[in-house]
């Protein structure tokens, strides 16, 4: 699979990841890795953040859209 973003720019780059939202193939330069907090517990126990985080690979477009107006 090739990087979709690079292909749109006329370049031919191998993809190393896939966007979890749109499925776009992404090279290292265009893959955005985000770390998401994980929580355990909740009613009837207080929720607490665990040390581990859940990674998520996104393309630039989806990453921007997920952030919304923030």
């Amino acid at each position, binding site marked *: 699979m090739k990087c979709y973003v690079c292909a749109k720019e006329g370049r031919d780059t191998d993809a190393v990841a896939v966007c979890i939202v749109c499925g776009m193939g992404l090279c290292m330069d265009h893959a955005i890795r985000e770390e998401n907090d994980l*929580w355990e*517990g*909740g*009613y*009837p*126990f*207080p*929720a*607490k953040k665990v040390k581990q985080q859940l990674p998520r690979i996104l393309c630039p477009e989806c990453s921007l859209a997920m952030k919304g107006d923030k």
Partner: protein
Amino acid sequence: MASLVKRSVAELVGTMLLVYFGCGAAVITLTTAARESGPLQSLTIGSLGGLADWLAIGLAFGIVIAAVIYGLGRVSGAHINPAVTIALFASKRFPVTDTVAYVVAQLVGGLLGSIFFYLSAGMDAVTIGGLGATAPAGGITFGMAILAETIGTFVLMMVIMGVAVDEKAPPGFAGLIIGLTVAGIITTIGGLTGSSLNPARSFGPAVGDLLLGGPDVMGALPIYIVGPILGALIAVFFYDWVVKED
């Protein structure tokens, strides 16, 4: 996790809301009946609507319980009931320091709920409504009342174990199911004991009545301490035993 202070404040606020809205509904039922039939009549909940009075009060409790669980459940666990906290401690699911802080916060919250309702509704809430305090109905002995409160709280705690504590429980339903369970229990047991199921719910109005000159129900308070705690303890150990694979 939120600090113990923040979690205790969440328990205080949750229990205050429970007493304000739940016991408040009982007070409104009595003051409405007094307006309809005159203050000299011997009033009890059910004078106007029979079992529907208890259903309405049960739903007021159930809805505010659901609201508190969904609103504050992730902060403190939203026990808003010393019997639940003590049962979780007894089954080694909750630490001792947190247990003491939670129970104190719940009792103070119960009292504040009663005081705030008095400030909202006026002296009739105390003299006619008794701030929604619990006492056994006529013909119900101390022992009968403890039994009813034990069975009622057993059902409540068993449901909490099944829909929330158990790791296999489907997420998201706890508040709704627990609220409806409380409403159902109150509809039936309300006519016997007032259906407290919660020492803090009875403590707040009883002490509020003592401070504000309402009816003296302190003699009945042990029913609502012993019964709910006993019921919750039996439920938690029963649940652990019954789900344990042989």
